Structure formats: structure tokens, C-alpha cells
């Protein structure tokens, strides 16, 4: 069973409380259609579990097959540096079909962020090391495609529709003896 090798830390983008019963980590790619499919499902999973779940998103851009994935990931980090990571994350997945530089710029503007600043950050690759660090940590952890989910550090193999994720997380909660 593949296990998450990089612990959740302050450098991660996190939704939900640090003392949640279970942590769900997604390695994703903003251009990956399967990740786009999983995006609303993850939101439903978060709604379902509320404060019992902590969700972490990490980058795993498949750059060869998804030409815009790297720039999209760096754009989300640019927003993240200004505390707007999740809004950008949502915008990018919600507009996945139109992904490309114009959408990245528009999304930055929609969030009130400087588009000139974004272009500069992309040209300089300011956030490339962060994205690459997520990617390599994912490789080390046995990420085998996108999206790859880890539930409490264990890779979730198999389908990731709503029912699959909810039941896998519930099984994990039972195993750690969580009672609420």
C-alpha cells in the first residue's frame, strides 16, 4: 500500500481544521478531466463530513499531456501567496475547458490580483519550485495518475465517485476508532 511520504505542513493549502478526524490529500492537475470531474465531488465530500475532515490540495501537473497544467498550478500558487489559493483553485476547475493564459489572467483579475504580477511570476517561474516540490513528493508517495487521493496517508486505489470516497473515509474513521 503506497503511503504519503510528505506530511501535511504549513506550506500546504488546507481546508478544514487541523484536528479533523481524517485528512484527505489530493494530488491534482487543473487540466486533467478526471480532476475536473472530482472537483465537485470533493466539495460534496467536504460538506458531508464537515469539521471531521481536513482537505489538502497538492500539484501533480502532467505537463507532457496537459500543456497548460504547469502554468495553471503556478497561477494558483501566485494567488495562494496572496491568500487566494482556494478561490483560484475553484475558478480554474470551474473553467477547465477554457484553460490557457487568457483564462489565467482573467481569473487573477476576477480575484482582484494584478495580472501584470501574474505574468511576471509565470515568466520568472517564481512558483515553479513549489509546484515541482509537490510533484516530486507525489512521485515519492506513489502517486500514479491524477487525481490520486490519500486518506490519512494511505493511497486510495479504485474509483473516486462520491460514494467511493465517502465510504473509504468512513471506513478509515471506524478503523481509528473515531466516535462522534
Amino acid at each position: 500500500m503506497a503511503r504519503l511520504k510528505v506530511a501535511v505542513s504549513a506550506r500546504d493549502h488546507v481546508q478544514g481544521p487541523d484536528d479533523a478526524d481524517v485528512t484527505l490529500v489530493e494530488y491534482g492537475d487543473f487540466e486533467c478531466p478526471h480532476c475536473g470531474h472530482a472537483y465537485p465531488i470533493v466539495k460534496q465530500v467536504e460538506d458531508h463530513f464537515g469539521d471531521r475532515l481536513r482537505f489538502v490540495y497538492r500539484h501533480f501537473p502532467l505537463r507532457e499531456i496537459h500543456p497548460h497544467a504547469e502554468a495553471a498550478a503556478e497561477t494558483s500558487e501566485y494567488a495562494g501567496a496572496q491568500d487566494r489559493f482556494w478561490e483560484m483553485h475553484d475558478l480554474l476547475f470551474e473553467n477547465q475547458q477554457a484553460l490557457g493564459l487568457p483564462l489565467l489572467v482573467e481569473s487573477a483579475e476576477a480575484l482582484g490580483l494584478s495580472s501584470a504580477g501574474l505574468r511576471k511570476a509565470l515568466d520568472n517561474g517564481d512558483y515553479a519550485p513549489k509546484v515541482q516540490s509537490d510533484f516530486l513528493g507525489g512521485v515519492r508517495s506513489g502517486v500514479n495518475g491524477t487525481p490520486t487521493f490519500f486518506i490519512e496517508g494511505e493511497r486510495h486505489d479504485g474509483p473516486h465517485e462520491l460514494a467511493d470516497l465517502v465510504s473509504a473515509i468512513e471506513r478509515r474513521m471506524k478503523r481509528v476508532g473515531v466516535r462522534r
Partner: protein
Amino acid sequence: MAQQILPRGARAPEFTLHVTPDQTLSLGELRGKPVILAFYPADWSPVCGDQMALYNEVLPEFKKHGAELLGISVDGAWCHAAFAKDRRLHFPLLADFEPKGEVSRQYGAYRTEDGFSERALFVIDRQGTIWWSYCSPVAVNPGADGILEALESLPRATEPATR
């Protein structure tokens, strides 16, 4: 049931297979470099979870160890060419096509009942001996973590191999 794949310490069986419709590659040509052999069932599995697409992304990490990556399946050279072009693969795919699956069989990585290769990984050391091998359930893409750990544990090129 499937046979056992060749274990660590076994001599890696030599082979010559088509890498393009008009070129062949022999394992022996790569002696002196670590070689990663990745047997897989078939070209054209779904994109984002595809094992070869993943290894393509991790290729720079394999190269840091001086390693050569070879994908092997029973698909023919023309099929491999189309697949490699579509997925923009930067490493060779070998066609274990005629006699079908013969090299896979030699490595213990052929599923006779299905007629295709296992998802079996081998890291072969610079002297041509299997250093690490792993067979994943056929439905589970094994990822790249095991390969990287095996490459890291290889003796350096200048050190004598000890095991």
C-alpha cells in the same frame, strides 16, 4: 495463476525487440547503465492514470541516475509509434509482439490467460543483473516510487556491486 517474476539477483535475460517498425534494440546495448524495464498490459489505457504517461513525467528523475527506461508490451511497433506520439513519450516502447509475449514470459511477466504482460517492473544494474523487481496487480498502476528507491540503492558506477 501467473508465474513468479524474476527476482533480485537473477541474470536479466537478453533480448532484441523492435523499438520502431524498422529498428531493434538489444538489452546488451545498454550495459553499463541501469535499465528500468516496465512491462505493461497495453497501449491506450485511460490518459491521466496511464503508467507510461506517468513515467514520461518522471523521466528527468530517472535520468539523474543515468538510467534508461524501456516500456514493453505485446502491442506492435506501429501501435507503439502512434501511442508514443499521442502521449509525447520520450523513451522507447518495445514490441514483445513476435513471438508474442516471449520476452515477457522469460521475465515471468506474461499473463497467459489474458495474452498480455503483467504490470511488472525491473531495475537492472550496470552489469545486467536484476537489482529489484515488482509485480503490481494488473488493475493498479504501481507508480514510480519503487523504481526511484531501487535506483537510489544501486551501488554507484565506480563502486563494485555488493549484494
